[in-house]
C-alpha cells in the first residue's frame, strides 16, 4: 500500500508579540472548538513567556497561514512518567473552514519530530510525548492514532474547567530504537 504524502506545509516559529499570533488567536473557533480560543487567549501566552513552550505557524503551498502547533516540556502527565518532565502538546489546530487536506496530520507529525529531536538531545526528559484530546473529537483521535499515539489514561477524565467535558490522555514514544 503506498504511503499517503503529507501536505507540504512550511513551518516557522511564532512568538507571542507577532502579527501571526494575533491572526491565529482571532480565527473563529466555535461550538465544540471554542476552547481553542480560550487556550490561545489564556494559556498559550503564559506557556510561551513563562514556560518552555515553542509555537510554530504553518504556511500552505499557496503561502497562506493555515495552522499552528505548540510544544512544551512540563509535568502535566507526571502521573504517567513517575514525576519526570516530558514533552507535551498543549494545542494545535488549523484555520477553521479549511478542510480535507491533511493539515492537522502534517502539523502533528512536525511536532512529533520536534519532540523526538528534543528527547534525542536532552537526557533529562521522559521519552514519551503526551497530549489531551476530548473523547468527542473523533477526527483528532483518528489522526493521533495514525501517528501511533495510544490512549494511556485508564478511563476518560472530566475537564473541570470545561464543564466536565471528558478527555483522554494519549502518548507516543519518541525515542529512537537503539539510542
Amino acid at each position, binding site marked *: 500500500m503506498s504511503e499517503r504524502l503529507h501536505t507540504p506545509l512550511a513551518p516557522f516559529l511564532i512568538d507571542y508579540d507577532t502579527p501571526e499570533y494575533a491572526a491565529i488567536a482571532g480565527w473563529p473557533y466555535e461550538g465544540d472548538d471554542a476552547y481553542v480560543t480560550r487556550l490561545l487567549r489564556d494559556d498559550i501566552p503564559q506557556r510561551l513567556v513563562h514556560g518552555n513552550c515553542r509555537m510554530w505557524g504553518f504556511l500552505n503551498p499557496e503561502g497562506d497561514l493555515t495552522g499552528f502547533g505548540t510544544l512544551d516540556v512540563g509535568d*502535566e502527565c507526571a502521573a504517567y512518567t513517575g514525576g519526570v518532565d516530558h514533552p507535551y502538546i498543549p494545542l494545535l489546530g488549523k484555520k477553521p473552514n479549511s478542510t480535507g487536506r491533511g493539515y492537522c496530520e502534517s502539523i502533528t507529525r512536525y511536532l512529533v*519530530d520536534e519532540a*523526538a529531536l528534543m528527547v534525542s538531545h536532552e537526557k533529562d526528559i521522559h521519552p514519551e510525548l503526551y497530549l489531551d484530546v476530548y473523547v468527542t473529537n473523533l477526527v483528532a483521535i483518528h489522526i493521533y492514532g495514525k501517528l501511533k499515539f495510544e490512549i494511556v489514561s*485508564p478511563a476518560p477524565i472530566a475537564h473541570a474547567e470545561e464543564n466536565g467535558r471528558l478527555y483522554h490522555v494519549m502518548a507516543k514514544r519518541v525515542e*529512537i530504537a537503539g539510542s
Partner: protein
Amino acid sequence: MKTFKTYDLAEVRSFTVGLYARITRCDNGEGDECANLEGALRRYAGVCCDFADGVRGWARAIFTGQIEFDPTVEKRWKEGGLDLFSRATEMYAYGATREVPCYTLEAQNALGSALRRLERLLRLWVTPKPAVGAGVRSRPVLSPQEAEEARAKIRSLPPLPADWQPVGRNQQRMFRLFKRQRPS
C-alpha cells in the same frame, strides 16, 4: 537557586534583595569569583538567570493553581526585573569595551544570552493566571493499580524505528548535528 515556599511578597522581596546583594558584592570586588572581569560577568549572568527562573516558578505556581495571584508580588517582580536589567546591561556594555579584535570574553556571551532572556521576559510580560487547559490545575489522580497499568502500557509503546528521520529540512539538519555531537 532558592526554593520558594509561598511566593508571598516577603519571600519574593527577600529573594530579589539577595540577588542585588550578590551583584553589589561583585561590584565591590568581594569574593574570589569576582576577582576579574570574567568572573564578574559570569556572576551577573547567573543572577539574571536566577531572577528569570524565580519568575518562571512563581508564574507556574499560579498557572497550576498552587498559589493565588497577588498584584503586589507581580509589581515587585516587574520592578526588580527592570532594575536588574538596567544594571546588567551596564555591566555588559562595560565588558564590550574590554573586548579587542580576536579576543572575546567567554562570560560576555553568557551575560548576553542571559540579558536576551530577561529582555524577552520583560518585553512580553504576561500576567499569570490559572490555566484553563485540561490536566493542568486538576491533575488526574491514579490509584496505585491504575498507575501501574498505565505505566505498563506506556512501557510497551514502540520506539521510533532505528532509521527514523524527521520530515522537515531544518529538523533533518539539527538531527545530523545532534548525531555528530553524540559520543561514540
